[in-house]
């Protein structure tokens, strides 16, 4: 323990220069801006600034890129709250309650919670990374495909709570998402499926246009349907004051739980912040005394989503630094950045380059603190979006959505995807089909299929019941799926009896 603290002290002294702090700040600002722009993912933001780091020292380069990664994870929540457009896939869950909070005139609260939950979640992730990186990476490596499969199935059980009263519809949309995910090349055998001769469909649907379409365009189309041009357009009053620090104290357990979940999920390669935020949101809803408020502006929902996706940053760094295995797409870009600077991640990195490793750890704390400063002033600007006239806001969201979808691959097909899913999102919203389970299906589909096939290839069907951990995860999944449905039915019966 003492060694860790002394190494951490060395790490802080490594980055204790004006130049390092300025580069971390630059990274955080660029990351937040990149995350806030739909179409610029955290990995893209890191990749875009990678060439700038060629001339920098390895430590300065890495702390700046780390700042971008941390900033971008928070940045995605800004547009999720302000215009119901998740800037990054992991911010999708933030929009579930963040945007309703803005609509209820609690924009400042939503922005404040997302900022502080991101910061504390990020710090929790960093702490776990520092203290448990080596043993945790060993555990993660021992996971078999069957356990990954069971973990994904556990992720799918969040449908039961995401759907609420409409759980039957939620189940259908989730399965529809899983089915849509099978479009493109089969992940194991590389065989074309349901591409209808469209080469752009070989990779399936790009996630960001789907998200922008379902959430942003769906919402705008629904609002346009109810928009009356004859009615005088009045500016809505939005409370843009960020709450005082005391306010966040009541969310301490939500943030702590979600930060830990995010970090743990982030450790598993391929899982990432999106799954983490779905799972943390689900856990929070189950733990809440007022689960009915979720989806209508529950502060705990925003806190859980943000703390978990920021916590996943620390988690993703565990396999990257200890084993050289990237836990997320952004971690993969960071891996190439390390290699560009002649650094080979793995256990040796800790002994050969302790100053760099612990400098990187220290920079995670500094970046999170700087993020609070940048976010506090930035959020005040963003929440004013609520003041913009609808006649200006709606066309701009449309233009933003089209641009965001186009900029990922410079593909008109992605724009078409965004518009098509916008139509689906509108219909879903109108007829109470929850859209979030569809996203869940799209996110988890490939992982489920890959691990399912791998399990069958390695051990056959017996592989799903051979290992105790797999069975435990399955049992938890079944219980998690059945519990809210059964308890709701019992409640309804009791209510009917009393009436």
């Amino acid at each position, binding site marked *: 323990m003492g060694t860790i603290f002394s190494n951490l002290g060395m790490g802080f002294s490594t980055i204790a220069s004006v130049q390092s702090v300025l580069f971390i700040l630059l990274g955080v600002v660029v990351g937040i801006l990149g995350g806030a722009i739909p179409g610029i993912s955290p990995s893209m933001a890191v990749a875009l600034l990678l060439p700038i780091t060629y001339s920098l020292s390895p430590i300065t380069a890495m702390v700046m890129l780390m700042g971008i990664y941390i900033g971008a994870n928070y940045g995605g929540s800004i547009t999720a709250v302000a215009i119901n457009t998740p800037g990054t896939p992991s911010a999708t869950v933030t929009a579930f309650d963040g945007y309703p909070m803005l609509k209820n005139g609690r924009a400042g609260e939503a922005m404040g919670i997302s900022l502080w939950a991101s910061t504390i979640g990020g710090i929790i992730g960093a702490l776990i990374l520092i203290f448990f990186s080596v043993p945790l990476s060993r555990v993660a490596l021992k996971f078999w495909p069957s356990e990954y499969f069971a973990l994904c199935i556990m992720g799918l059980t969040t449908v039961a709570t995401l759907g609420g009263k409409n759980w039957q519809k939620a189940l259908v*949309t989730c399965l*529809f998402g899983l089915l849509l995910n099978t479009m493109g090349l089969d992940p194991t055998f590389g065989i074309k*499926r349901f591409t209808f001769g469209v080469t752009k469909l070989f990779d399936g649907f790009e996630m960001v246009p789907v998200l922008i379409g379902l959430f942003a365009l769906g919402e705008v189309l629904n609002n346009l349907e109810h928009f009356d041009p004859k009615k005088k357009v009045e500016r809505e009053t939005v409370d843009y004051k960020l709450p005082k620090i005391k306010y966040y104290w009541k969310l301490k357990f939500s943030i702590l739980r979600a930060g830990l979940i995010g970090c743990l999920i982030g450790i598993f390669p391929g899982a990432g912040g999106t799954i983490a935020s779905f799972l943390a949101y689900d856990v929070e809803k189950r733990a809440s005394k007022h689960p009915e408020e979720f989806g209508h502006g529950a502060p705990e929902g925003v806190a859980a989503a943000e703390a978990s996706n920021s916590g996943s940053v620390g988690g993703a760094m565990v396999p990257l630094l200890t084993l050289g295995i990237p836990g997320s797409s952004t971690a993969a870009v960071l891996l190439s950045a390390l290699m560009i600077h002649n650094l080979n991640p793995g256990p040796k990195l800790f002994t050969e380059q302790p100053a760099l490793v612990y400098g990187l750890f220290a920079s995670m704390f500094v970046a999170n603190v700087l993020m609070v400063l940048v976010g506090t002033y930035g959020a005040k600007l963003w929440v004013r979006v609520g003041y913009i006239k609808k006649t200006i806001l709606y066309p701009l969201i449309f233009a933003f959505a089209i641009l965001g979808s186009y900029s990922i691959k410079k593909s008109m097909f992605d*724009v078409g995807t965004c518009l098509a899913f916008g139509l689906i999102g509108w219909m879903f919203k109108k*007829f109470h089909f929850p859209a979030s389970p569809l996203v869940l299906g799209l996110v988890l589909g490939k992982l489920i299929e890959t691990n399912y096939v791998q399990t069958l290839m390695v051990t056959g069907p017996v592989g799903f019941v051979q290992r105790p951990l797999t069975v435990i995860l399955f049992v938890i999944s079944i219980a998690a799926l059945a519990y809210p449905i059964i308890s709701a039915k019992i409640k309804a019966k009791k209510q009917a009896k009393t009436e």
Partner: protein
Amino acid sequence: MEALSKFLTGLSYWWIILGFLAIMVGLYFLFNSIQRTKPVKAQLLCLCGMDLVTLLFFLLTFNLRVSKLAAEAGATPRTMPRLWALLMLLASIGAFFAIIRKDANPDEKFNRWGFALLVGVGSIFSVIMFQYIGYYLSSAIFIVVVMLAMGEKNKLQLILVPVVWCVFTYFVFYKLLFIKLPFGSLFSWLIK
């Protein structure tokens, strides 16, 4: 089944979309004619739309190539789509009965859906125009037209909003992020 799958695989997606729309229209009239389903016809159409896609995918799986390796492993490219399709069928039956239940919510009435749809169609038209008049002009026209359609009369805002948008996208996306937005064939000589 394989013959039907081969036939469907050979069809252009335009025919598939047309067939899909024809079936949906048929279902609309069917649901509209039954007392129980009439108040929830739109919800049922949403559900059936997803089920039709599922059915199509299920049928198409019969024409998917299966390698020897995959067959030996017991998991072919057909496995997951079929599994999801089967579960979808079961879930849809549950959702169908939940929708037509007596105490279930009826469909929300359509308000100015034509207007919303027109904006959507306008955005598609704007995207098509990218290649001819370029992103900047096309998006500026789109913004102005939607603002006007929504009843905006402030001339200064009608001019400023699209101009600021174009300047923002040019500097942030084109200059800063190096994302080349289409200039359009009409103005392509400008950048040659």
